[in-house]
């Protein structure tokens, strides 16, 4: 029924000299050629620590920005079988941030492999496939179905939009153990576990992921919230509740990253309200090793690439060899 993403824009991006995008594609960092921004997630080495947050990227964005400059891309969460997603409105903006209740429409693993995966492959960077499930037992089969496709998998145990009232799989360390152990059997590729904000103990959740064999944790998903329409006081979203994202959640997620990074050895990937290289450095300062950018890309599609370029500049300015030194420099203070 719907051609959507797959139909539109399949040719290589032509260069129009008359728009800012063309100039941005043309720009190449100069001084920073020798800077090493690479990070390792298990057996996978990323050229730099910047990637999109799941659900906030699609191959269509590759027409607008030089995606090859990113460390990796992360797909929208893929379920085993197709899902329709939630009723409109699926997103809105309020003063505290944006709230979405998209509800993870998915064409299922088979649909992803047939329609979307080839377009991700063209981007020229590692592809991290986000994997979802309604119950702990649903994750491993999807990983198995997808294996061969992704360079790594992010297990999304923290979507706030699947069940309006229920608790997340990811707020229960035992459920995390079950999900990750099974997925670990299903693939040798790196596994990232994306954790929720509303858990009693982020440290216990991160430890469970590590114990079960995860290669990294991503901290965190959006924060469940209920936006009201200002005039009528009725819910602004079809699903009543959604996930709050954007800069106002940063101080909350900074604490979670700090706690997770103290609890585990595996890398912590920070996600929550990152808009600039300064924000990324804040997360590095509390122990993150990589960052994901979500909401910021909507208003400024080039935000991720700007962050990569700014980190390169910062290393060059500070005369350090790479991101680790830059982080040490800040953390020492």
């Amino acid at each position, binding site marked *: 029924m719907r*051609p*959507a*993403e797959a139909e539109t824009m399949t040719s290589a991006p032509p260069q129009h000299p008359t728009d800012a995008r063309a100039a941005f594609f043309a720009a190449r960092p100069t001084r920073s050629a020798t800077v090493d921004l690479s990070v390792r997630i298990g057996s996978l080495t990323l050229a730099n620590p910047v990637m999109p947050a799941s659900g906030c990227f699609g191959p269509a*964005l590759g027409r607008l920005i030089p995606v090859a400059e990113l460390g990796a891309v992360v797909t929208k969460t893929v379920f085993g079988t197709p899902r329709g997603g*939630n009723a409109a409105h699926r997103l809105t*903006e309020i003063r505290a941030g944006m709230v979405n209740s998209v509800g993870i429409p998915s064409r299922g693993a088979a649909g992803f492999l047939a329609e979307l995966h080839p377009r991700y492959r063209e981007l020229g960077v590692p592809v991290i496939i986000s994997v979802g499930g309604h119950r702990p037992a649903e994750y491993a089969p999807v990983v198995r179905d997808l294996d061969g496709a992704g360079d790594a998998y992010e297990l999304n145990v923290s979507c706030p939009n699947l069940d309006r009232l229920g608790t997340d799989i990811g707020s229960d360390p035992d459920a995390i153990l079950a999900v990750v152990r099974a997925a670990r059997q299903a693939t040798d590729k790196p596994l990232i576990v994306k954790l929720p904000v509303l858990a009693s103990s982020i440290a216990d959740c991160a430890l469970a992921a590590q114990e079960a064999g995860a290669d990294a944790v991503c901290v965190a998903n959006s924060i469940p919230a209920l936006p009201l329409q200002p005039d009528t006081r009725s819910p602004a979203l079809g699903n009543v509740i959604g996930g709050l994202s954007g800069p106002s959640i940063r101080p909350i997620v900074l604490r979670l990253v700090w706690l997770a990074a103290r609890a585990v050895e595996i890398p912590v990937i920070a996600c929550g309200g990152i808009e600039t290289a300064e924000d990324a450095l804040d997360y590095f300062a509390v122990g993150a090793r990589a960052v994901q950018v979500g909401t910021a890309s909507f*208003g400024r599609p080039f935000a991720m690439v700007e962050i990569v370029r700014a980190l390169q500049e910062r290393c060059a300015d500070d005369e350090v060899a790479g991101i680790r030194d830059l982080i040490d420099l800040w953390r020492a203070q």
Partner: protein
Amino acid sequence: MASLAREALRRQQAFAAADEAALDGLISVRPPAGQPRPEPVWDDARVLEHTNVGQRYRRLVLATGTIARTALAGQFLMITVPPTGGERILLPRPMAIHRRHPDAGTVEVIYGVAGRGTIALADVAVGGSLLVTGPLGRGFEIPSDARTALLIGRGVGVCAIMASVEDAAARGVDATVVLSGRTRFDLIGVTDCAELGAAVIPVTDDDGSSSIPALGERLRAEFRDNPPAVILVCGAGVLARLAAELGAEWGVPVQVSLEAHMACGLGYCHGCAAPVATDPEVEGPLVCVDGPVFDAALPVSSL
């Protein structure tokens, strides 16, 4: 009296609900276009003009060469609202491309000052620049054999149809344009239509001429002998339904441009579900890439 305000709010809500319900069963994705869609770009578009239009709208003239040259009628922009004095607008706002001036390398946008986003947008100064992404989405298409067209716009919905009035003028299609609004002073597009040589039917709420029965009667009379070859409509669910009814009566196709809350405008955030009932296991169409222009036809049951 606050209870009067409450009453007004109730009426407004009831109207909005009815307007939404009017689309029930009407919408379907258009078949693949004959013409390929232009490649979207983003640009730092210089603000050349930023003026009031009537009492409730603002008009932007933006210098953005690629978009001005490539945009198809009915496509839209995502406009990133710059921070004003601490107020941060996170999501870009979708806005129809009201007019294209390819030679000047400019486009025009007209918007209503409604909520936080457009209140902040209204502060943008001439000489500054706005980050815009476009042209986006699936626009209106006047069939190649059409010699006449009826276009119906209400409020800022007029902006979605005006580039089709440009197309009609360029192709020698006789365009009749219904411009609907609250009062005569609120009508968008009167001078645009005059410039483009289109016949205008202005209808307004204050004299009752914009009511659906009155407008239906008027259009049925107007086109009794010579129905238009296509109807393009934007701005209200009840107008889309009227258009679909007329389309069924006259046996002509109807296209409608819809709105939805958007984040990316490019089809990847999946935020802009169109009001089309589908199997719960299949994602329905997205307004930003499958629309904003859809086909509108009365559901078979109601024929």
